[in-house]
Structures are given as C-alpha cells and as structure tokens.
C-alpha cells in the first residue's frame, strides 16, 4: 500500500463537478436498478411508449392530410365558363377586366382549343372527339381569388362573376374542401384533448409504479433518513427512475411511429403514383421528435415527483 497516497490531501474538485458526478452516478444506478427487473421495466416503458405513440401518430396523419389538402388550393379557383358565342378576343378582353379586381389574384384563359386538346389527351376519348364536327367546349376563365378573401367576399365574387354578360355559368367546388379543413381542425383539437388525457394517464402510470417502488424500499428509505439523508437525497433515485421510464417510452413512441410510417410508405406511394402526384409521406421532423422524447421525460419526472412528494414525506424513521 502506498502510504503517500493515503496521506496526500484529497484532491479537491469544484463543487459543481462533484454535484454533476453525484447526479450522473445516481442516474446510472437508477438505470441499473431498472435493468435488474427487465420484464417489469419493459412493460412500463411499453405502456408509456404506446400511450405516447397514439397522439404522435395521429399528429402525423393530420400533418400529412394538411399537406395533401393544401395542394388542393386549385380547387378553390372559380371556373367561369363563357357562353359559346363569345369570341377569343372578347374572352381575352374579359381576362384583362377581371384581373383588375382587387379580390382576384390572377386570371388564366383556357381557350376552347386548349381545353379540347387537354381533354383529348387526358380523357382517352380522343377518337370519339374526331367525329365531332365542331368544338363543343367554351372558352373558360380560371379565376384565382386573392388570399385575402373571406368566405363572404368569396361569395360576392362568385355572384359577380356569374353576373358577367359573357358568363354562362360559374363553377366553384370549394365546399367539400372547406368541410375537409373544418374536419381536420376538429380532429386536431380532438387529438390535443386526447393527448392531454393520455399525458395525465402517463403521469398516473409512472406515479403508481414509483409509489410501489417507494413502498418496496420503505426500509431502505427509513435507514437512509436515519443516518442523515435529506428528502431530496432519497427522492433523487426515484426521479431518475421516472425519467428513464419517460425517456424509454418517448423513444419507443418514436420508433413505433417510424415503423408505422415505414409500413405505410409503399401503399401511399402507389396511391400518389395513381394520382400522378409527387406526394410522399412526411415523417416526424427533428423538433417534433424532440418534443415527444421531451414530453416522455417531463411526464416521467412529473409523475415520479408527485409520487415521491406524496409518499416520501410520510416515511420517517420510527
């Protein structure tokens, strides 16, 4: 034995370093305690993971639905079909007039010829069209309202476009898009409420697990307090256990969502291929992933803190 070692003054560390070392070692010890009961620990993590994955997955669905529906802004355009006796020149003049309006962003003229050509290419009825003696299609103005429009001013615009002498009829197919957006809005709200309830459930689950743990270690807590441990000291390992449960659950939730999206990717791509759309599924981005993992950690800490605050104080040496 080196006596010089024992006699040397103990190396002084900065208090903050000591503090950090204590916390890290408590955190590792808590992880070690969990790993000694792998089955029970995994069950808890699984419950938390699934509970967190539900709102996360719903959020991803809504997010993708919003992306898809935003590409449907075209559907909000007015198609003003002109009477068939309106000439191309008059139609062109009308474009200039309508595009002056403040509530109109742009006006595109689709001439009867263009419309026919497009129809021929896309419909597959090209051969049938060859038998027609004349072009049955009218010139069409595609009017895109400016973004500042409200529902009322949209209605007004619709009416005024219909009143143009050259207009045959105006087609707007906005209602179902609006309904869809309204449904998405409701769903989003419902998910937020559901997420809050599930968060409460997670706090209860973790709190209950920690409560049982505290009861099982009652004697240890008593002895530790008897030889001078503060409430904070005896609480600390339980907070770390709660944190690990939460973090494990959060990471599991991310993995579940990721796997779910992976499983959906191929059929979604096939579907968007059928619509000749470039849409591809949006996964959780980094900040969303951090929020989910962070939510797990926070709920774990909160649940264990509540349980510890409630049950720890009552355990005093007898």
């Amino acid at each position, binding site marked *: 034995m080196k006596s010089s070692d024992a006699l040397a003054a103990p*190396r002084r560390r900065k208090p903050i370093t000591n503090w950090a070392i204590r916390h890290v070692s408590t955190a590792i010890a808590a992880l070690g305690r969990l790993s000694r009961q792998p089955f029970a620990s995994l069950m808890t993590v699984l419950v938390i993971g699934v509970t967190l994955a539900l709102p996360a997955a719903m959020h991803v669905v809504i997010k993708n639905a919003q992306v898809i529906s935003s590409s449907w802004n075209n559907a909000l355009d007015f198609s003003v079909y002109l009477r068939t006796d309106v000439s191309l020149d008059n139609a062109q003049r009308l474009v200039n007039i309508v595009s002056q309006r403040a509530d109109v962003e742009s006006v595109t003229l689709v001439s009867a010829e263009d419309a026919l050509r497009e129809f021929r290419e896309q419909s597959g009825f090209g051969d049938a069209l060859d038998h027609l003696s004349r072009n049955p299609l009218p010139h069409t103005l595609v009017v895109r309202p400016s973004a500042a429009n409200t529902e009322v001013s949209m209605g007004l615009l619709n009416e005024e476009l219909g009143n143009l002498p050259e207009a045959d009829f105006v087609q707007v197919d906005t209602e179902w898009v609006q309904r869809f957006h309204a449904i998405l809005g409701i769903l989003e709200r419902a998910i937020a409420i559901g997420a809050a309830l599930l968060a409460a459930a997670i706090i209860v689950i973790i709190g209950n697990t920690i409560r049982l743990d505290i009861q099982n270690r009652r004697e240890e807590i008593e002895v*530790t307090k*008897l*030889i*001078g441990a503060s409430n904070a000291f005896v609480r600390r390992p339980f907070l770390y256990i709660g944190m690990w449960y939460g973090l494990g659950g959060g990471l599991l939730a991310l993995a579940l969502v990721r796997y779910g999206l992976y499983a959906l990717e191929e059929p979604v791509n096939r579907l968007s291929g059928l619509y000749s759309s470039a849409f591809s599924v949006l996964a959780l981005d980094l900040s969303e992933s951090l929020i989910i993992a962070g939510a797990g950690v926070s709920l774990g800490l909160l649940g264990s803190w509540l349980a510890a605050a409630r049950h720890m104080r009552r355990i*005093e040496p007898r």
Partner: protein
Amino acid sequence: MIRIEEVTKRYPGGHDALKGLSLHVEKGEMVFVTGHSGAGKSTLLRLIALIDRPTGGQVIVDGQNTRRVSRRKIPAYRRQIGMVFQDHKLLYDRPVFDNVALPLVIAGIGHREAARKVRAALDQVSLLHKEKQSPETLSSGEQQRVGIARAIVSRPKVLIADEPTGNLDPDLSLEVMRIFRRFNEVGVTLLIASHDIALIDQLGCRRIALANGALAVEKEEDPVAEYIERMEAEQGQDHWQA
C-alpha cells in the same frame, strides 16, 4: 457534549416515557444507560437522534439545542451523530462497502476520498477483507461491526448506540464493546443503551440507570441498585410500580 435538561416525553395516548430527566455526558466520555425495557433508554436516544422531539425540557448535543433544529435541518443534524442499532439496520441489497459508504455519499463526498475513509473504517472493525460481500453472508456480530463502521465512517464527535449487543453472544458483545472503547480512546463521546450489566462492569465506565423515565441511581457501585436492576432486567417486570 450531551446535555439533557428536565426532559419529559409524553407519547400520544398519555404514556410518559421520560419524566423530567436530567443528565450530562462530558466530551470524551463513554457512558452507559441501563434500565429495563420501558425505562426510557430508547426514548432518550430517539430524542438525541431527533427521531422524536421532547414534550418539555431541552436536549443539547454539542452545543445545539434540538428544539432549534428545524425539520429541514434534521438530516444535517443527524449527519453529525453516529448511530448504531440493535438490529444493525443495514441495506441488504448492496455490499458491505456501499453500506459503510452511505453516510459519505449522503454528505456528497467524492469517490476517492470516500473509498479511503470506508476502508479506514472497515479496517477499524477488522472487516476490510469482507468489503465486497453482501451483509447477508456475514454473521450477526460481523453485521453489527459493519453497522459500527458505517456509524464512525464520517468521524462523528458523538456516537449513540441502542442495545448494540442485544443480539450477540457474550464473546461477540465484548468484542463490540472493545471497538467502542477504542473510539472512546481517540476522543469520541459515546452514549450506549444496554442492559448487559456484567459486560458494562468489565469496561468500568460510568453507568446511568433509568427507571420509569427518570434517573434511578447514578453511581458506579451500588450493590443494592444493581441487584434490583439485574432482577428487573431478567424478569422484565416493573417492581417499582408494584
């Protein structure tokens, strides 16, 4: 070092465990508190350890009046006192080393310094070679020595022990008492509750006899009191009330 002044302790239900007890343990003294069960030995130690608070009177340890130690300050107060228990109160889910290190971990002492102190404490109770074992694998006497090592590892000025030899056979009891004596020789103040009169007499320390929550006799040699006490200890009955 330990000053008990006019201390009364009434437990809920009206039982008076201590009735105006006064006693004084000098710095560096080793004092035994004797008396049959129910005489107030354990209550006295509980008041010193701040597990309970007195109903009346003052308990002053190393100049600190326990009345002025707030609930939040109790842990810091307890860290200044070494405590040894009849049932050892070891933690059986961790090895001997970790048990002894616990007070140092609580006090936030760095790992290297703690390891050095733990080994020193284990060396003093001759258990250095068993530091990696679980307390469960040790004999009762060895477990009590681990408990003592834990009590002295942070070098407290005061050590209190409640029936430290209560579960041990005579040889082991003597060994434990010798260890206490060695601490006393290096300046630790000890207050030990025990009913093992014969053993105490071998050590030749001051003895404070309690009966019914008050001082019975405070003399080193009093054959009559000793006889009465011995009878009480053996019979576990209260002749004073009869």
